[in-house]
């Protein structure tokens, strides 16, 4: 575990200020996003950033909560806003219809909100209207799915898909401990999405470093049903597996069902995204699930905090830089039985 953290830190240190921000942010959100929300953020801050300031009106729009992770995005954002009495959060209906999402942003522009936190259903499709908002003097924070123009957002908060693959691969290497004959399998998400390709590339790159490769790979579609189908095929194809990485914990429910049906126990399974179910299974330690890699569902919550800082013209207290950074890439740590209690608080229910 410690080697992973060292490697991660070393890698991230290269990005300089952003890396520092990443660590600070993930530390903050782990404490603050839980629902019962004890104000742990206040303890951590060494400036008066969390003190009530000028009123900030923030518009928030995200896709429909059709899977656990997406549901948690909005829930965490709302919970975060509630911790500040100077934030007035306007939450628009979650939608997968870009036409409707555009009109929600137009409404925010009409309302002359101070900032907009936007997780687009489709980054490219929302670029034009986000730019319109920026032109109207509204601070736009882009979350998770990037716009295709740098002019469309003041700051972008992202998860680290490539990093997820690296974290999972490094964990496997660690466990394999130099044995190059281990069989590694991978169940990916929707294969044509850039995020899936990034995750797979990171996984492959990390495995290559210790002489391992992906022996069997199938793709599912992030849903429980597709996970079950893909996993049963995979288990048929590979009679013996040592390590299995599943990209997504929502589809993982189906993957686990297939494993149970096939009565297989010989391998170690690593999850992805970090759902509460999976973390509880890791904690109980009675299934093949021994680890998962986090894709933070607190991105929008962080975006709310950043929007507030930007509108109130404050800087990030733990950076020497005056301005809030242009981009924040959140870390993708590995969760195991040893550190599961730290992360379970911020996990999402699938």
């Amino acid at each position: 575990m410690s080697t992973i953290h060292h490697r991660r830190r070393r890698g991230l240190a290269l990005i300089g200020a952003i890396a520092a921000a990443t660590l600070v942010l993930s530390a903050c959100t782990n404490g603050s996003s839980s629902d019962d929300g004890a104000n742990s953020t206040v303890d951590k801050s060494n400036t008066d950033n969390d003190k009530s300031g000028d009123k900030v009106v923030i518009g928030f729009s995200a896709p429909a909560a059709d899977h656990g992770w997406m549901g948690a995005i909005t829930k965490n954002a709302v919970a975060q806003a509630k911790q500040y009495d100077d934030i007035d959060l306007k939450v628009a209906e979650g939608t997968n219809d870009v036409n409707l999402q555009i009109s929600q942003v137009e409404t925010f522009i009409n309302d002359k909100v101070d900032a907009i936190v936007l997780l687009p259903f489709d980054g490219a499709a929302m670029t034009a209207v986000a730019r319109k908002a920026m032109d109207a003097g509204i601070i736009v924070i882009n979350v998770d799915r990037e716009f295709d123009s740098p002019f469309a957002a003041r700051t972008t908060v992202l998860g680290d898909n490539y990093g997820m693959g690296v974290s999972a691969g490094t964990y496997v290497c660690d466990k394999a401990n130099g044995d190059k004959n281990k069989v590694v399998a991978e169940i990916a998400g929707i294969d044509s999405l850039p995020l899936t390709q990034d995750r797979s590339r990171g996984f492959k790159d990390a495995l290559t470093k210790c002489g391992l490769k992906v022996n069997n790979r199938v793709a599912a579609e992030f849903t429980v049903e597709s996970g079950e189908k893909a996993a049963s095929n995979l288990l048929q194809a590979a009679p013996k597996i040592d390590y299995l990485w599943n990209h997504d914990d929502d589809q993982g429910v189906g993957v686990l069902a297939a494993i149970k049906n096939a009565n297989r126990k010989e391998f170690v399974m690593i999850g992805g995204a970090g759902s509460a179910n999976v973390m509880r299974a890791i904690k109980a330690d009675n299934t093949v699930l021994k680890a998962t890699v986090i894709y933070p569902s607190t991105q929008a919550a962080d975006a709310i905090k950043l929007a507030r800082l930007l509108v109130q013209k404050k800087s990030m207290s733990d950076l020497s830089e005056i301005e809030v950074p242009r981009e924040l890439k959140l870390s993708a740590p590995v969760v195991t039985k040893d550190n599961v209690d730290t992360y379970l608080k911020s996990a999402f229910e699938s």
Partner: protein
Amino acid sequence: MSATDTSTTLPSTAGRGGGSLGVARNLGLVIALVLLCVVGIITSGDRFASTDNMLTILRLAAVIGVVSIGMTFVITGGGIDLSVGAIVALSSVWATTTGTQSMADDFGWIVMVFSAVIVGTACGVVNGVLIAYGKIVPFIATLAMLASARGLAEIIADRKTQIITDQGFTDFFGAEPLGIPMIVIIFALVTLVGWFLLNRTTFGRRTFAVGGNPEAARLAGIKVQRHTVYLYALLGTTCGIAAVMLMSRTTTGSSTHGLGYELDAIAAVVIGGTLLSGGRGTVIGTLFGVIIFTTLTNVFTLNNLSTSAQAVAKGVIIVVAVLLQQRIADRKT
């Protein structure tokens, strides 16, 4: 000859579509819309009753509105089309491939508009031929189109979002002559043409006749099969226009465009007062249906209300509207 004959031999069916009944039904819709606006003004005041907000509502209504006008014709003609959203997606993808876009560079952005409209119309023709000549139930034929058109869109786009690089295209459709957004103007034009076509032409009269009683229509000399193909082709064309509007709004073409449009369009048409079984239809009613749903969405957004509450409200409105419609129809006949 049959053209003039038809309009005179079937006055009763057609007359009911736009006659006194239509006025009464539209009156209910006006009341519903006014009530919604009152709620909007009470809860959001100037935020609701501003010009900017009205334009926001109309821009949102424009895309689904154009599809709904086309849907009015198909439903009036006794059919149904579940594939409209998928056709919008396919048209938007086809019109934004690198091939089409490089052609647009050479010949102007009008190429993109034409390809979207042609692809939409072609899909409509396929639907119509399958239904009229293949004798496949509309529900099934268009369900098949829904699956295959969206699948084809995914294959062509490789599930990626295709970005429109032509500045002329986005400038033209993003323009606001006299302060009115271009897509709202297009919506208004489509509505006008639709109203004229349905109420003032033999094409419209035949549509009522085919929807009301296909056998009688055939005996009256209408080529029912050919007319059915026309109706679906017309809806396909409006889907192509909607795709162009969506492309201008998002500056992209994508296989995920138009998700769920079939249900939104059918709901708007039905609460507008068009009979789902055909034979009676109103373009003005559909216009109100679309505006009512978009205003509802707007009022909910302005008041920070949740998805789930909005879905419930939509459901209730559909049921109440249809119940009212039946009461009014009973009283008048």
